[in-house]
């Protein structure tokens, strides 16, 4: 359950940015989560709910998180062959290029990132 730690980071990052933009209420947060991470979307959602629940100490630094919605975009795992430069979706857990039989590089799927937030 390191998702809790990830969501604590999320709250810190957003509160810092919100203060810089004079925003006091967060309405929506969008994050990007690659499928080659150890983070489970359901666990991220749960952690977000726990941390933004009113009456907890979290999120009480003058920023209102009540009714804030978390949106998660999941990214597929994509790899690229260094030989033929073909890009392919890794869904059978194999990073070998089917044409050249060479190990390919992961180019997407490792994201764990705040995309944007909305507030007022």
């Amino acid at each position: 359950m390191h998702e809790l730690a990830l969501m604590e980071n999320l709250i810190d990052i957003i509160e810092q940015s919100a203060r810089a933009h004079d925003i006091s209420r967060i309405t929506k947060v969008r994050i990007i989560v690659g499928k080659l991470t150890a983070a489970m979307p359901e666990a991220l959602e749960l952690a977000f709910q726990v941390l933004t629940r009113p009456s907890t100490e979290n999120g009480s630094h003058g920023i209102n998180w009540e009714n804030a919605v978390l949106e998660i975009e999941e990214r597929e795992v994509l790899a690229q062959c260094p030989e033929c430069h073909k890009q392919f979706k890794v869904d059978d857990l194999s990073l070998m290029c089917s044409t050249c039989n060479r190990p390919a590089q992961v180019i997407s799927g490792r994201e764990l990132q705040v995309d944007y937030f909305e507030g007022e």
Partner: protein
Amino acid sequence: MKVIVAQDLLEANDGIAGRNRLRWDSLGTLVVNLISAPGAGKTTLLEQVLEDVSRDLAVGVIEGDIYTCRDAERIARLKVATVQINTKGACHLDAGMIERAWQELELQCGKRLDLLFIENVGNLVCPAEFDLGEDIKVALLSVSEGSDKPAKYPLVFHQAQACVLTKVDLLPYTDFDLGAARQEIFGLNPKVAMFATSAKTGEGVEDFCRWLRQQVQVKREKKQDYDQRQG
């Protein structure tokens, strides 16, 4: 109002990890992060490895544990400099915890280390996400856990430089499919170094130690190159 952030959730951790890495690069210390599920035999393997490598290398250990310090006590018995981290419930070590533990370890042992082991908390999933500044991640998988683990938790097997299968003496008594597991791990990570070990028979431990010594040598040469360029 919409604010584009485009920032990594692990940015703070990765910054500290980078600092740790610079420090260990400047010292020429090879850092190995051991990751496995609980009960995979991490501490037992580490004990056997330490007995071998500490004969001629200066070695230290940072022990991560959720609540107890039993593992650290086991390691300290081998007269290897050891610092314990209690994560107080957290399921992983992060770079900040390691930075503090390293300061303590440096004070305690007072000499340059060739090799530092970090025994992560027993969890195959979460620790894989946190860069500690290590050179090498080692994923341990015991044959009693079942051969479907790589498919279930691909990240750690994708990132590891070495994968150590433990308790292979139990192979005849389990339905662990060694061929399938190897194939899956190589699929995720074609360059990984793979070792099949048994703490009971000692099989494979020597091979793993030999590989570690090679990595220590590589790190040493890197530091010498670096010093010459500075020098």
